[in-house]
C-alpha cells in the first residue's frame, strides 16, 4: 500500500472513531464502581443500566452526565422506556425496569456527584470539558453556541 493511501485510511479511521465522541461526557469512564451500593442497585446496574446504555452506545455519556435531579433523570428514562420495540433487537424496558433504572440513576447521582464527593465531581467535569475543548474545538464551539 502506498504511504499516501495509508494516510488516507488512517484519517478515515480517525474520523469514524471521532464521530463516537459527540459530548464531553463521552471522554470519561464508561463504568461505575457500585461495590459499595446496596445490593438492589448493584443488580440494577448490572442487569439494566449496562445492557441498555451499552446497546445505545451511551454508557460513558450517562456515567459522566452532569444531571443530578430526579426530574431530569425521569425524563431521560421515560425517553428510553417509550422507545418502541420495532426491530426486535433493541432492549425493551418494562415499566418495572424503567422505575428501577430511574431510582438507580437518582441514587447514583446523589452518591457520586453531591455531598462529600461534590468537589471531586466538579473537578472531574472541568477536566472533561477542558480535554474536550482541546481535542474537539469545533464541536465544543457548536455545543457552547447551542447552550447559549
Amino acid at each position: 500500500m502506498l504511504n499516501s493511501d495509508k494516510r488516507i485510511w488512517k484519517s478515515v479511521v480517525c474520523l469514524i472513531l471521532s464521530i463516537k465522541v459527540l459530548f464531553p461526557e463521552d471522554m470519561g469512564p464508561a463504568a461505575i464502581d457500585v461495590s459499595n451500593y446496596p445490593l438492589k442497585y448493584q443488580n440494577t446496574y448490572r442487569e439494566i443500566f449496562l445492557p441498555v446504555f451499552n446497546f445505545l452506545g451511551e454508557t460513558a455519556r450517562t456515567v459522566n452526565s452532569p444531571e443530578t435531579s430526579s426530574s431530569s433523570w425521569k425524563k431521560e428514562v421515560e425517553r428510553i422506556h417509550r422507545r418502541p420495540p420495532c426491530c426486535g433487537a433493541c432492549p425493551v424496558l418494562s415499566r418495572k425496569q424503567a422505575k428501577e433504572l430511574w431510582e438507580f440513576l437518582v441514587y447514583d447521582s446523589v452518591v457520586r456527584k453531591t455531598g462529600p464527593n461534590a468537589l471531586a465531581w466538579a473537578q472531574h467535569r472541568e477536566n472533561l470539558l477542558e480535554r474536550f475543548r482541546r481535542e474537539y474545538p469545533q464541536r465544543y464551539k457548536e455545543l457552547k453556541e447551542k447552550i447559549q
Partner: protein
Amino acid sequence: MRRVWISVAVLGWLGTWGVPRVVAEETEVARLTFAPQVPPPIARKKPAVVKVHLETPEVDGILMEGLSEPTKYTFWTFNGHVPGPFIRVRQGDTLELSLANPKTSIMSHNIDLHAVTGPGGGAAVTLAKPGETVKARFKMLNSGLYVYHCAAPPVTDHIANGMYGLILVEPPDGLPKADREFYVMQGEFYTKEEFGKEGLVTYDREKALEEEPTYIVFNGKHGALMEEGALKAKVGEKVRIYFGNGGPNKISSFHVIGEIFDRVYREGGMAEPGDANIQTTLVPAGGAAMVEFKLEVPGAYTLVDHAIFRIEKGAVGQLQVTGKEAPEIYRTVK
C-alpha cells in the same frame, strides 16, 4: 259424518297454503367483549333479534402509565371502555339496541352505527339525556366490519373523548375459520398538557381542530398492547385482526412488522377473497379493515401505524408468538 270431518280437516289444511306463516324470530342477547377480545363466531344459520345493551358513562381512567403516577383522563365511553364493546351479529339479524345514559353524565349521548341504514345510522332515534334509556331496532342489511360512535352534538368532541367501537356483521355463511381473533382500535387524544404529563390531563379542542394529537394509541391507552397487554399466538395459527380507526382525524397506515397480510378485507368490506399479500393497509378515520396472516416464525411482532413518528405517541403494540423455530425461513448466518 266421519267423512265430513276428514274433508273439513283436509280442506282446512289446504287452505293454509299461500297464507304466510309467521314464525317468531329467535331472540338472543349479544355477547359483548372488550378489546382485544372478540366474541365467538355466530353459529346460527338463521336471522335473529339480537339484543344489545349499551351504557354511556363518563369515566376517569389511565391514558398512560407514568414512572411515579399515571397520566389520567376523563373518557366518554360505551360501557366504561375505550374502545366500546365489540358487537358481533349476522347479516339479516335485527339489532335491538338499548342505550342508557347514566344520571351522572354531563352530556347527552346517542349512537351512529355505520352498519345501520337509516337517518344518522341510528343517531336520530337513540339520543338519550342523562338518566334516560332509549331503545331502537335496526335491520342488518349488509355484511361488513363497521365503526360505531356517538354522534350527539358536537359529534367531534364525543369521538375525540373516546366514544367509538366496532360492530361486525357476518355474512350469512359466516367467515372462514381463524385460530385467533383480536380487536384493535386506533384513536387520538388531544390534551392541553404536554405528552407524558402525569396526573389528570384535559381535552384540548383547539389541538383537535388543528389535527395535532398529543397521543395516538391502540385500544384507548398508551401501551395497552405492550408488556402484560401484548397479544399472544402460536406458530402455525391463522390470526385475524379486526382493526378499526376511531380517529377523529388521522388515517392509519396499519402494519405488522415482520408479517405480510395474507388477506386484507379493505375498509371492512367482505368481498371474497379479499386482497392478498399486503404489507400496510390504509384505514381511514371512521373506517375499519380485517387482516389475516398465518404465523410461521416465533418471536415478537410489532403492530404499528406506519406513519412512523406516531409510534412515539403510542401507536404501537406487540404480538408475541411462541412455537418451533423455522430456520429455513428466518435465521442468522455466522
